[in-house]
């Protein structure tokens, strides 16, 4: 089994955003956003629909150009870090219906972007198989490897896709709504997996979610290190206990917002204009 090399700490942290603004379709989506992410940190991007959460990920990927401010990802301009940054887009139906084995899906992370056919022999093949087995072990999907992904549940498929990203040994992992459409147990499993990857593998994870609660549980690693709450053209960044308060969010929205904690400990944001 190949050993996982500990990622080197890049100069300047994993992600540095300073005073960044984005304009799309003639209007400013958000502006004056600051964010620092260090290796091994879990950052959750929250906010109402349409606020521009996915846009933030796309800026980090270099798919959307910022209008002002500076962006550095792993010490370089966004989009230049190659396979050190990996991205899981919001799950589309195509992935769930394609008749291909989980093992082959994970292998696509190793060389799916390269031309040619995967030959079933030789050193390239053995290296690929090793990395697939390693990634599957780290994400807990080893017994799913030979099943067609069309037969997997939402949570299982999501963990297979995370395994695919893991084969590329990223230092920064970006996920868009990784828990969407999953039942509570599956949400907990995926959230716990992501926290574990941060803590034990030192990967920085920035994910978009419409609900922070699956990440606030008592599981290993604890709460996210930082949340970025995007709303009303701005963003509030900081530890969850500082940002997820009525006072802070009211300032962000410019109107009264309450953050309530239910009896079971779930946080609910009430009064946000949406």
């Amino acid at each position: 089994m190949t050993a996982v090399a500990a990622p080197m700490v890049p100069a300047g942290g994993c992600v540095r955003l300073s005073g960044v603004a984005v304009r799309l379709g003639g209007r400013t989506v958000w502006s004056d956003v600051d964010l620092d992410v260090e290796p091994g940190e879990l950052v959750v991007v929250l906010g109402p629909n349409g606020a521009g959460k996915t846009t933030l990920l796309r800026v980090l990927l270099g798919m959307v150009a910022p209008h002002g401010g500076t962006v550095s990802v792993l010490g370089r301009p966004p989009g230049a870090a190659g396979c050190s940054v990996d991205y899981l887009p919001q799950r589309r139906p195509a992935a769930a219906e394609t008749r291909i084995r989980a093992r082959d899906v994970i292998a696509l992370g190793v060389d799916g972007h390269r031309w040619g056919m995967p030959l079933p022999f030789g050193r390239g093949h053995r290296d690929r198989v090793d990395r697939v087995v390693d990634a599957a072990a780290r994400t807990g999907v080893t017994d799913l490897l030979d099943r067609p992904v069309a037969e997997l549940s939402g949570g299982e498929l999501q963990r297979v896709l995370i395994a695919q990203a893991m084969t590329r040994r990223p230092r920064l992992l970006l996920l868009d709504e990784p828990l969407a459409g999953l039942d509570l147990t599956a949400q907990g499993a995926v959230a716990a997996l992501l926290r574990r990857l941060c803590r034990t593998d030192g990967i920085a994870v920035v994910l978009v979610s419409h609900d922070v609660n699956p990440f606030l549980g008592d599981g290993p690693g604890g709460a996210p290190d930082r949340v970025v709450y995007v709303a009303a053209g701005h963003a509030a960044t900081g530890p969850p206990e500082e940002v997820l308060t009525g006072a802070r969010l009211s300032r962000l929205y410019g109107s009264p917002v309450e953050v309530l904690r239910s009896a079971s400990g779930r946080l609910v944001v009430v009064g946000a204009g949406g």
Partner: protein
Amino acid sequence: MVHALQAGTVVAVLAPVLGWFVVLRGQTFAAHTLGVVAFPGAAAAVFAGLPAVAGYYASTVTGAVALSRFRGGRRAGTDEPTAVGIVHVAALAGGFVLSRLYDGMLPQTTALLFGSFLGISAGQVRVTLVTAVVVLAVLAAIWRPLVLATLDPELARSRGLRVAVLDVAVLLLVAVVVAVTSGIAGALLIGTLLVTPAAAAHRLTARAAVGIPVAVLVAVVVTWASLVLAFVSDVPPGFYLAALAFGAFGSAVLADRVRSVAAAR
């Protein structure tokens, strides 16, 4: 007859390999429609005094480029099955109008639609073989990016793949295979070699390394049987191809059911 068997074997190896991807991508309706689109193309060419082959290639390539634009689903304005269906009906109607314009029905219409094995020359066998080698080489070269783009186009784009180019490339390969296969199996029944054996194999396995050889085996056996039966019974081989391929698919479905029942015990 020998030439028909040779050309038929080449096609029976080529079509299911591409067909595996066509079934994987859910584009079998588009592939079948490219076969139907070949019909007015060939009829127009014959009407104009050109060889039918020129018409085949012109219409299938145009059709491939046009249909690949609808891969994005509803975001492209019209979803893929609707667009394909519209083209399908228009092509069929266009082909019949053209063949009627030529002094009543073209004598070749049956051959264009359902195939024949008369008049396949040694030259045609060579052309078929060269085409098959080229198509398979292109497919081997784009294999990995194609699977990734099929599984998750957004992810593929984020890795720098030109998904739109791959989408067009797949349908262009289908267009070429349709044009080359139409002489034997006929334009209308192209699916019997392109789609059905691969669909049968997909029922049995999700591993390309196993499924593609199975699909090729089915196609080769069905093709040989059809050509022999057509030779002794004076019925176009396309009918036998369709019937035997359907039988093979039915058997695969049955085998799959038996396997899941056995596994559930």
